[in-house]
């Protein structure tokens, strides 16, 4: 106690600390990008495909690895089909092994960030498997997607119904619309509403006349809502998404706004703008707010959103949800299939101005991959587009994809629910070309979702929530090379 410390000792301590800091800083500088990626990988489920040789392999030239990153966990059957295709490719092409990895827990923004960081660290994926192409619009406009060779593009265009060709397009970093998708994997994240025909009949509504306008949705939902003797909700008439991933909240709201005339993100000259706090969007947000607080067809405390409430009949009308809704009914509760009714996302002008959330789930190639990886990746995509594989990922497992042969063959040509969905998707007046939405799309939907949550729980007004979204997105856009005014 009280021992005197000499100046020499101080210098030693100082020297040791400074030395440690310098060494540490150097290690940190060198290791930082890789470490960030490693940390993210910890939170994922990895499915590395091990090849079971069924075809005699050709003599390998130079071995290339093709990491294929899938955002979001799809239905087991779809994942298995994608895995089988990769397996067969690997067996025949030991020189270019596809390493198929699913990232079920990352949000869209996190996935895009992970790709960017991996690219910075020199280890980007070669293939993007998407169950949500909004991520690709962001990556495309930031220069992370490779344009497909003309033969790949021709193959995919020939196989897909022409009505869906526009969904292969995205914005390039130069602001031009170009096709970037090479193959369709998991169908279409189209937004439609799914209603329960049995419940419609039960409350005296015509099951063949689903709501198409905002007013019709209010009337139907009011008739369908059910409460117990204490006034607590036991069935929502319609479910407004207000929880979970904020990006999802924003994404499910946008079809209502677009159906009311909003542009969301648009380009004028070389600048990008948003009308997110303007009249069409405010009215759409107010409409959803009123469904909860004025018409009381949904309760904030009641878990009404998603597949399960619809399947358990605790929600009568669900959506906007993708085509996977029907696949999910088929696999989880097939006895409910005859009650599936499909209608457009309601808009003030009905189906004429309704918006189908056209969002093809595709495979694309990363522009930051090596030349060898890119060449092999396109070869793999050609292999993926073979008629056998198309049938495997669509008809065989009830996964609706807009391939001509799928649409025109059972079950899609015979099952009523699929036919109704097809009718809705091909008849909507304002197709919502999400793939062409430009830079900052993910950030906008996320920020919008965060703020809509606040508006729906009455923390701020609808206008304040949208003004805040505008302010934050504009600030974010200023960090990009695409300046927003």
């Amino acid at each position: 106690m009280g021992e005197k410390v000499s100046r020499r000792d101080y210098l030693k301590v100082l020297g040791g600390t400074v030395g440690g800091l310098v060494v540490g800083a150097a290690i940190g500088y060198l290791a930082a990008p890789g470490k960030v990626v490693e940390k993210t990988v910890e939170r994922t489920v990895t499915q590395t495909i091990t090849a079971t040789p069924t075809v005699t392999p050709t003599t390998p030239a130079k071995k290339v690895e093709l990491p294929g990153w899938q955002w979001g966990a799809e239905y087991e059957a779809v994942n298995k089909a994608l895995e089988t295709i990769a397996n067969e490719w690997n067996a025949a092409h030991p020189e270019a092994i596809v390493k198929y990895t699913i990232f079920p827990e990352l949000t869209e923004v996190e996935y895009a960030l992970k790709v960017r960081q991996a690219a910075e660290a020199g280890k980007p994926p070669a293939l993007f498997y998407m169950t949500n192409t909004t991520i690709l619009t962001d990556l495309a406009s930031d220069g992370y997607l490779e344009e497909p060779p003309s033969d790949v593009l021709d193959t995919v265009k020939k196989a897909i119904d022409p009505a869906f060709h526009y969904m292969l397009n995205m914005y390039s970093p130069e602001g031009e619309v170009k096709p970037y998708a090479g193959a369709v994997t998991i169908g279409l994240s189209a937004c439609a509403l799914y209603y329960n025909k049995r419940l419609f009949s039960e409350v005296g509504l015509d099951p063949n006349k689903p709501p198409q306008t905002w007013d019709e949705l209010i009337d139907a939902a009011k008739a369908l809502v059910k409460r117990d003797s204490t006034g607590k909700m036991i069935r929502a008439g319609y479910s407004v998404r207000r929880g979970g991933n904020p990006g999802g909240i924003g994404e499910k709201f946008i079809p209502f706004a677009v159906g009311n005339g909003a542009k969301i993100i648009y380009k004028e000259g070389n600048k990008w703008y948003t009308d997110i706090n303007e009249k069409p969007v405010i009215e759409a947000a107010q409409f959803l707010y009123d469904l909860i607080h004025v018409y009381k067809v949904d309760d904030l405390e009641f878990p009404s959103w998603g597949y399960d409430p619809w399947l358990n009949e605790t929600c009568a009308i669900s959506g906007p949800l993708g085509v996977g809704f029907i696949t999910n009914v088929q696999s989880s509760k097939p006895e409910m299939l005859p009650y599936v009714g499909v209608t457009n996302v309601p808009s003030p002008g009905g189906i004429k101005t309704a918006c189908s959330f056209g969002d093809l789930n595709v495979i694309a190639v990363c522009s930051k991959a090596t030349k060898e990886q890119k060449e092999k990746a396109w070869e793999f995509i050609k292999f993926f587009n073979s008629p056998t594989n198309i049938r495997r990922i669509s008809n065989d497992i009830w996964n609706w994809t807009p391939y001509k042969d799928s649409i025109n063959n059972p079950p899609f040509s015979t099952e009523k629910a699929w036919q109704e969905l097809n009718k809705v998707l091909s008849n909507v007046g304002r197709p919502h070309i999400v793939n062409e939405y430009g830079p900052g799309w993910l950030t906008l939907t996320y920020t919008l979702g965060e703020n809509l949550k606040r508006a729906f729980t009455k923390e701020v007004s609808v206008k304040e929530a949208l003004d805040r979204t505008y302010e934050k997105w504009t600030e974010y856009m200023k960090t990009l090379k695409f300046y927003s005014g």
Partner: protein
Amino acid sequence: MSQKRNIIPWLFIAPSLAIFTTFHFFPLAILVYASFTKWNLISPPQFIGLENYLKVISDDLFIKSLFITITFVFTSIIINVILSLGIALLTEKPNSKLATLCRFIIFIPYVLPDAASAGIWNLLFFPHPSSPVNVLLSQLGIGWQGWIEDKNLALPTIILYYIWKNVGFSTLVYVAGLKAIPKIFYDAAEVDGASRLDTIKYVIIPLLKPITLFILITSLISGWQSFTDIFVLTKGGPGTATTTLSIYIYHTAFGEGLAGRAAVAAIILFIITLALTIIQLRYIKSE
């Protein structure tokens, strides 16, 4: 020889110092720099001076998240300390198998991974009439509750979760502390005619002060930084009812792409944690 001996300890310390610098000081320096920039985590940062600080301080959501964090941390810590001391006193009896079993059961949530225990909690408190807790409440005639979907109940539910998760650890520390109190103090109290309550008040609680301070400091730091469980349970919702500072930082940096603003909030969180820890350490020292 003496000089050589003095260098050797520093050689042993150098690797851990290097690791500490790499993963703590270096990121901290980046954080401070980022707070003065407009940055989206990818594009090169642009220096903007104090703009982020002004925007964060005037952000109503930041202020709200600060109050939510304070409410969450202090309520859960106070209840946790009282509860764990009570459980420790009830289960400290040596050679009691029942007491050991009780401590073991209470300790289980602490060793579960955050995401797993939050998942269990989600199942128990699922806001639906059929969830286990709601069924129980209905049988008691109280009626089912929205729990984490109810903006008035979400924060109390999170606090309850935090206590359930951490009370086992605090209890274990208290039991160890109780076992370390020499028997002579109890004997002296008995000779003086002290009741059980008096013994707790005048002997046990004062002697357990260092243990209590240890629990307070560790709980305070972990509480302020709590993220995973809240994120799994509510993602900060409904609305922003459970948006703590950590959740605010996450949304701002990784959702809205405003890493500069998030850095400011992180620095404020760091300063508060540091200040509270220094105050507590000074208090220990003065005691």
